[in-house]
């Protein structure tokens, strides 16, 4: 080969010997360190293949002698996160729920944890914003069928509503008045119910029917009875719709929502955090003061 070595005059560079239509390729050599760098990358690749997962198999990749895997990394990070949370979790577990708000930092941690648990366990019925939908209560407002204090929310979460498998579940059933009332009576009663929130004119028939059939659970003025889960009827919030027709339908054939008991499915700390989150959505109630409530006093005065 050395015999036919030709040199390009202007540059002093050797020709490679390739020619295309008179255009020839010059040999401008790369530095040798470049070649060694290339060999080094090959060596690196071989070492990498031995040490780390590399060759894809049907359902996994070759393991690598270091035993590293991204799943292992994730598991380690999760363990580390659990360990980092352990202190706070233990503190929440040791704190009675009604004492949580007095420790704003702990309350904040509980609300954050509850927000995460809510997204997994609760949004299916209550919605991502906890705003509910017809039949599924809104958790942001100040209307609580079973009570809106931290303790009451925690109880509801723990034991569920009409969840037969839980012995202490919250339960009540509104009787169906289908067959008892005729259409006119239903209209009169529905009219009275609407009048409680000022949406219709009061009528004597409806008022009498209400006092006879409904006041025991819903309260004389329709203010509700959270202790037995009697919904308030004197406000603008309606679980199954607030028109006369929808109220009539509920009188004739009431629907009863069911919420599972979370005891046994979620640990007590998660339930506590969920209660804190729901309470912090904006409508949570403070524990009832010792003095009689103004509402109760008003009823008593009547």
């Amino acid at each position, binding site marked *: 080969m050395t015999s036919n070595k030709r040199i390009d005059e202007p540059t002093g560079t050797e020709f490679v010997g390739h020619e295309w239509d008179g255009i020839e390729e010059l040999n401008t050599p790369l530095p040798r360190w470049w070649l060694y760098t290339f060999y080094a990358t090959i060596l690196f690749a071989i070492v990498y293949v031995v040490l780390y997962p590399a060759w894809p198999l049907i359902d996994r990749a070759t393991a690598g002698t270091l035993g590293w895997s991204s799943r292992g990394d994730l598991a380690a990070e999760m363990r580390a996160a659990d360990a980092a949370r352990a202190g706070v979790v233990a503190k929440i577990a040791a704190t009675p729920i009604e004492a949580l708000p007095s420790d704003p930092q702990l309350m904040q941690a509980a609300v954050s944890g509850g927000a995460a648990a809510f997204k997994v366990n609760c949004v299916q019925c209550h919605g991502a914003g*906890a705003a509910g939908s017809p039949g599924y209560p809104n958790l942001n*407002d100040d209307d609580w069928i079973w009570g809106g204090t931290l303790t009451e929310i925690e109880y509801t979460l723990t034991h569920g509503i009409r969840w037969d498998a839980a012995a202490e579940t919250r339960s009540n059933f509104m009787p169906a008045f289908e067959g008892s009332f005729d259409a006119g009576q239903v209209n009169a009663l529905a009219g009275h119910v609407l009048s409680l929130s000022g949406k219709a004119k009061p009528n004597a028939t409806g008022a009498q029917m209400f006092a006879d059939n409904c006041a025991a659970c819903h309260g004389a003025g329709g203010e509700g009875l959270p202790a037995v889960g009697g919904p308030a009827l004197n406000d603008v919030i309606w679980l199954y719709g607030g028109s006369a027709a929808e109220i009539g339908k509920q009188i004739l054939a009431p629907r009863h929502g069911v919420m599972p008991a979370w005891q046994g499915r979620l640990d007590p700390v998660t339930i506590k955090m969920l209660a804190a989150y729901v309470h912090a959505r904006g409508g949570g109630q403070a524990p009832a003061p010792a003095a009689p409530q103004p509402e109760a006093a008003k009823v008593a005065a009547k």
Partner: protein
Amino acid sequence: MGSALYEAGRTVHNKRIDGPFRRFKWAIMVITLTIYYATPWLRWDRGPYAPDQAVLVDLSNRRFYMFDIEIWPHEFYFVAGLLIMAGIGLFLVTSAVGRAWCGYACPQTVWTDLFQHVDRFFDGDRNARARLDKAPWTAAKTARRLAKWAVYLAIAFWTGGAWIMYFADAPTLTHDFWSGTADPIAYATVAVLTGTTFWLGGFMREQVCIYMCPWPRIQTAMLDEKSLIVTYKDWRGEQRGSLKKAAKNPEKYGDCIDCQLCVAVCPTGIDIREGQQIGCITCGLCIDACDRVMKETGRPRGLIDYATLDQCDAERAGAPARPAWKALLRPRTFIYFGVWAGIGAGLLFALGTRTHTDLTVAPDRNPPFMLLKDGSVRNAYTLRLRNMEARPRDMEVALQGLPAGAVMWTDSISLENAAPTQTVTVRANETRVLRAYVLLPSGATASAFAFRLTAQDEQHESDTAETTFAMPGAE
């Protein structure tokens, strides 16, 4: 044939030279290295709530401090603007003075220069170094090499060590570093930078400029016949010949006495007399060398000189030499300078007029509003109150443009204390995130309104954030 595919390594043993360009290089080296190594140790009093390091890139707290300026993440456009200015600055320098960045200020050039001085200190000047390179590995040579590499390593380590000081409080980090309690990332960064400095500055040197760096390639596209380059004035120098030959036959020979001093002093080992080439970083050391030879031989200086190709053509045709600084006066330079200065002025203006109080509002979208028992409507908002002062401040949040009776409370101010305005404390240098609830009494309606944030101090800086109030049936 195979061996010709790759070029064997060679070491540039550049000869010592003195002259104006060499002294300029010394000055630049001292200035740049001093800035690099000393800056993190400058202190700057910002009060008790902010670090007292003059220049600090605080990645963990997401703050960038530079003397009196503090940049928050949302103001990153200042940093972006600086980077754009640096980029355009390179274009500007290239347009005005050619590859001056390569020749004087590029870190690769500065550190290579430093390492070449170390070579000279240990192994002597050009010829002694070349001889030692070829010499067999005796105990003396080994000892000398190990000592030299130890100094390389010390410089490299110091370089890597200085780098991390920009990212944490320098005295604390130094203490932690030596007591073994610093973050592993600090050690890894120092290790990587020590390695690259040792390798690139100690051994790769001009190979970085010729084979690795993209900037010379980009510059080949930016240089034209009006660019200032270091060039050999061949019409004056050719035919080359020794003084003896020229004395015998003055008509035949030019000014170049072919002493090879320009080649000997070149830090990248090129022959400038071959013309413009990618290996020429325009450091001007060959000008120093040639000017000295011209002086000694009694000829005018500037056989090798800064000049434009246009000027070379003019001189070849007999025009007089023109001062090199006149090459600065060209439209391209003015345009680059205009853009560069414009961005700089814009940044300065923005810096001067920015406030240290900021409010952003995000209304809850799910649910957009909440109907309460008594018919009143509640909306929820996430407020971000930014206190960019290095002191805690009380800030008042007020509702603007809502009907009377509208009140607000927050996750930290209970419903019982609901009012049209609330005052909260925001800690120094922090963003406080508030969940705010706004309640509109039954019967009232509203749509657009604003939150107004006012700092409760002498300056009363304020910011207003527009948002909406969602109502049932108002979609």
